[in-house]
């Protein structure tokens, strides 16, 4: 073997490094394509359908290659942050919860496109507007809501004489006491997950008339009699219907407990029934779903929407707009929704009676819940401060601390202190 000199080594290393940097740049300029960033779906056929059927059809039709890039559940904010900070990466991104407001300045105004899509498809739900409107501009095309509703065991509820799901939180509490006595406790997440905690705690707060911040988006109003009543209810609801472990649950926990037949009622997306039908058909037979119970001020749900935005620095903005227009056409969109049954609930009224709702009638409450769904922090408009409150689990921990034994007064004061610090500069 020929020995390499020191100079030779350095030259070789230099050439190698240069090739490594220049090579991919040259290669990427070769063909026209656009990249769509999406969080991995709980319904695997959903990702497969766009990757294969839709992307291939679009390339055949227009010659533009669509790269569907999937990121793990929970990692979407990090990925969008990186792209928005570096002005490079994907051309279109999925948004969850409050991401439209966080990244709105990096997104293209798609008001006209959304109006066109809405006009063609029976109009948008108000929740669709709430999810994507930033200073009067549509910064994303609403795609769907992933509702968080009540999942309940019909067989165990029947054992205590209940055939239809209770209409109010108090009625549900009374049923829960009996079921816990029968060794079938409830299981509602009170830990630091991504969605199943917010999914029932914000609606509970609203249904008792409580709120974090007033509709002006500035005044902290968490310290109220209404909040206190909601907290008091949550404490007894936890104590008399659940078990200690729910205080540490993350989003996967209630699904595991459901399939282990450990709990008789929880709050989750449709995926719990979808998964049971695939893997635990006997449990699926006795699983039903219902809207959240009502409180003294009405019935509410969490708006856990998905939307798609086009980055305003994308070199293929026009192609991205054209792709979104094509994707949102019923010919494409209907098939994409249908492949996931109704896990993704369309925010367009044109789909209110679509065949997908007949595949599994037990999912219909998820459609009906969209008229009472709001983003966390409602009635205040979505804001970066609200995103901070959600990230710090202020409402979740207010309830969780009360359930763990702290006084109502202390937990509300603590939440108020944190919210005032967050909203200080507004």
């Amino acid at each position, binding site marked *: 073997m020929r020995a390499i000199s020191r100079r030779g080594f350095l030259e070789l290393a230099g050439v190698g490094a240069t090739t490594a940097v220049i090579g991919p740049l040259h290669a990427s300029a070769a063909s026209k394509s656009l990249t769509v960033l999406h969080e991995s779906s709980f319904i695997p056929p959903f990702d497969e359908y766009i990757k294969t059927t839709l992307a291939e059809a679009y390339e055949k039709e227009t010659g533009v290659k669509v790269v569907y890039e999937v990121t793990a559940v929970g990692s979407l904010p990090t990925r969008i942050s990186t792209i928005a900070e570096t002005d490079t990466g994907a051309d279109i991104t999925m948004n969850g919860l409050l991401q439209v407001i966080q990244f709105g300045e990096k997104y293209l105004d798609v008001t006209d496109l959304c109006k066109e899509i809405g006009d063609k498809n029976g109009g948008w739900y108000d929740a669709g507007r709430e999810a994507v409107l930033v200073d009067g501009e549509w910064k994303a095309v609403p795609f769907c809501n992933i509702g968080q509703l009540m999942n309940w065991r019909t067989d165990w509820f029947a054992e205590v004489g209940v055939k239809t799901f209770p209409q109010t939180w108090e009625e549900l509490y009374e049923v829960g006491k009996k079921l816990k006595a029968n060794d079938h406790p409830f299981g509602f997440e009170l830990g630091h997950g991504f969605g199943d905690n917010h999914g029932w705690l914000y609606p509970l707060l609203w249904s008792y008339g409580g709120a974090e911040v007033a509709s002006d988006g500035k005044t902290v109003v968490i310290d109220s009699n209404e909040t206190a009543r909601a907290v008091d209810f949550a404490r007894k609801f936890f104590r008399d219907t659940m078990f200690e472990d729910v205080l540490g649950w993350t989003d996967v926990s209630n699904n*595991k407990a459901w399939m282990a037949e450990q709990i008789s009622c929880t709050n989750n997306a449709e995926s719990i029934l979808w998964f049971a039908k695939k893997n635990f058909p006997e449990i699926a037979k006795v699983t039903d779903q219902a809207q959240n119970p009502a409180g003294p001020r009405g019935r509410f749900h969490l708006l856990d929407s998905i939307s798609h935005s086009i980055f305003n620095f994308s070199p293929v903005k026009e192609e991205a707009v054209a792709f979104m227009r094509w994707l949102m056409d019923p010919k494409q969109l209907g098939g994409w929704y249908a492949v996931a049954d109704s896990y993704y609930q369309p925010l367009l009224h044109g789909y209110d009676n679509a065949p997908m709702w007949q595949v599994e009638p037990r999912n219909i409450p998820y459609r009906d819940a969209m008229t009472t769904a709001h983003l966390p922090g409602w009635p205040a408009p979505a804001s970066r401060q609200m995103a901070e409150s959600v990230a710090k689990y202020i409402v979740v921990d207010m309830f969780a601390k009360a359930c763990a034994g702290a006084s109502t007064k202390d937990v509300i004061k603590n939440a108020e202190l944190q919210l005032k610090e967050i909203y200080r500069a507004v």
Partner: protein
Amino acid sequence: MSVRSELIVAASPPARRTASHASWADRQSVFSWLMMAPPLLFLGALVGYPFCYGILLSLQDRPVAHPGTFVGLKNFAANFNDPIFWRVALNTFVYTGAATLLKMVGGLALALAMNQRFPLKNLVRALLLLPFIVPTVLSTVAWMWILDPAFSVLNWVLVLVGVPKPGPSWLGNPILAMVSIIVINTWRGLPFYGITLLAGLQTVPPELYEAATIDGASGWQRFRYVTLPLLQPIILIVTLFSVIFTFADFQLVYVLTHGGPQNATQLFATYAFDIAMGAGQLGLGASVALTMLPALALLIVALTIYLRRG
């Protein structure tokens, strides 16, 4: 290279320049700097620059995807007024202190045991490294099942020996949740301590033990006056590494509890991540992350002084 080609090279002026360039590059001082340059650039780009940028961010109101505004120490003041921040600080110190102590004591015991003669010694030593080798996320998911109330093998055993059903709530109770993450961190870090200290033990000359035995030293005295002083430099290095890794731990907590219940297991790294990436407040998140720095530096300096004096 043949004689003929050497002559040709020597005869041409450009080749002379190349030759002088070659001898310049071959000089010891130049070559060593050329070899040092890539790692230095690497460290500068991936450690130095992010560190300086982190300091800059911490002094700004810097929402993600927006230009920053200089706010001085306002972010640090906001942390000072944030009750979660103080909880996080306490959690991080308790977690680091308890886990490091357990790993140190357990690791030393493990090394002493592994230094004995027994059948299949090499196989056992290799197996001991498993917790350290398995990716943290993977082993944490396994622990998630072990601590799960419905499926917990731990609770199953406890119920068998008479603990009332369903057994302790390992991740729902704030104190038990902290105990759980300390135990898991210890389980994961113990092999690192054990194997490193074992390597140290094997460098202790046997003559010293023989001399101590002849002088009438007991087993404890041989350990206290021979083994421990000779292992001290290695203990120092391993502890420093362990404190740094444990203080900045992220994956275990993020996967297992995400800081819950009620922030009982929230650490600096997970809290900084939630604020920076979840809330999109890069400046505030950077200020939380940077708070680790002086605390960590103080810990390391104190430990170094203490162990050197000892």
